[in-house]
């Protein structure tokens, strides 16, 4: 469904991604792990069009999306939940969700909001609260909910566990599983390698802008190479 072919991308002088090739098939949860600065977030940003792809191509559902503006990529069915959640803090939970469905026809809005509240009943209670006043876990739920509002085919999640207490992290991980079970495909970027490997099907290990290792997540869980890669050894 999603293919990155030898993608090179970056900001300014230094290239961050130096020839990354990734494949995500329908219905999978694929995770991208690696140490800091390896280029994980940049990969997602290249897919969603926030970062220009200098070389190589990105294909989604057999259509080339690299080089197209972000709003077109969203319309194609890709939703990106950015690192750090990036909610609109001064807007209410509902407004944030509505913005997530910006591309949706007006009549479907109510439906979609109801669906998200189905998923995250706790949010329904916070409907009119300012997003900035919610706890970390709730904010993460809003962020993911906002992504789901666009009714995407592919969901890009950037470090959903960042800043969350361990118990919440597990909850979020289970949420992601459930989302996949309902038919979405997920590409997940995570700092917390162990957790990511537990909850995903396949994994890619990114190191200084290149794929250093790939495989079935379960197999990689105990792999000493992963530990080395993370600690830069």
């Amino acid at each position, binding site marked *: 469904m999603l293919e990155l072919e030898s993608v090179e991308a970056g900001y300014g002088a230094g290239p961050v991604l130096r020839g990354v090739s990734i494949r995500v098939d329908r219905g999978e949860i694929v995770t991208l792990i690696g140490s800091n600065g390896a280029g994980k977030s940049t990969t997602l940003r290249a897919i969603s069009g*926030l970062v220009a792809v200098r070389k190589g191509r990105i294909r989604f559902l057999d259509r080339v999306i690299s080089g197209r*503006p972000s709003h077109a990529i*969203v319309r194609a069915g890709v939703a990106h939940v950015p690192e750090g959640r990036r909610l*609109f*803090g001064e*807007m209410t939970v509902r407004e944030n969700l*509505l913005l997530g469905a*910006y591309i949706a026809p007006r009549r479907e809005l109510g439906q979609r909001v109801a669906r998200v509240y189905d998923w995250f009943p706790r949010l329904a209670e916070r409907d009119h609260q300012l997003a900035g006043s919610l706890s970390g876990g709730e904010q993460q739920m809003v962020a993911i909910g906002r992504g789901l509002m666009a009714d995407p085919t592919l969901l890009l999640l950037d470090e959903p566990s960042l800043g969350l207490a361990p118990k919440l992290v597990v909850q979020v991980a289970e949420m992601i599983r459930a989302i996949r079970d309902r038919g979405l495909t997920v590409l997940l970027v995570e700092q917390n390698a162990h957790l990511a490997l537990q909850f995903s099907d396949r994994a890619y290990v990114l190191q200084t802008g290149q794929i250093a290792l790939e495989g079935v997540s379960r197999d990689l869980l105990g792999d000493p190479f992963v530990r080395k890669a993370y600690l830069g050894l």
Partner: protein
Amino acid sequence: MIELALQQVVNGLLVGAIYAVMALGLMVILGILGVINMAQGELYMLGGYFSYFAIALLGVDYFTSIAIAMLLTAACGVVVERLAVRPLRGRPFFTVFLSTFAASMMLQDLAQIFWTPDPREIPTPFAPVPIVLGPVFVTRQRLFLFLVALVMVVAFTAFLRWTRAGMAIRALARDRDAALLMGINAERMHMLTFALGSALAAAAGALLGAMFNVYPTMGELPLLKGFALVIMGGMGSVGGVFLSGLILGVAEGLTAGFLSTRWVDVVAFGTLIVVLLIRPEGLSGWGRPRA
């Protein structure tokens, strides 16, 4: 003495509200596009002229002429955006500033050539009977203009708050990347923002133009005062800008009443300077524009 002061205060409030309308137009363009629209004064001027011509040539009433002026000027604003702003995307911010400055100079000139420098008077349907409120006189005209300005501000706020496009615009100002990820088409929103800012300028021009006169260079000072208000009120704070507008209007009114009309404009800039020194970030709002 007190009567004079009160009278000037009331007069000032009315003018101040209209300054605020002008300033809001500037603010939204600056906040969303990060562009200082130096042509805003000329869009204000066009508003005045379109209103005048709508009445003179089409025979519509004053209220309708304001609406027509806003529409036509919004269209002009979009043209300015297309020609003077969009092609310069990625160029240093100062280049865009100069570009709109150039556009402003040319528009001013064209107005002078086509419409001559003679001032025009916009006829308004108000009897010159003043309403007396205690020690203060208010002409019907001024009261109406104040109400229209108020309606504009409220409508603008409502638009930003309640409509989808308004939310999209706010999102873009707050966090551009996150907004793009919502599928918001930044280019289209830029166009809309410019149209909105131009419409507000046009309204201000049609309103103040009816109170005073319409002439080609009428936009110079309101432009600068508008900026002063955006800075004083704080980027993104409609309330702050409106309040600052009222304060400015009152300050000008009192200066005109007690000192002399000659020093009125100095007050505007003097106030700006004082505010900048005391509180460089203005009252609340969106924070610094991307500059």
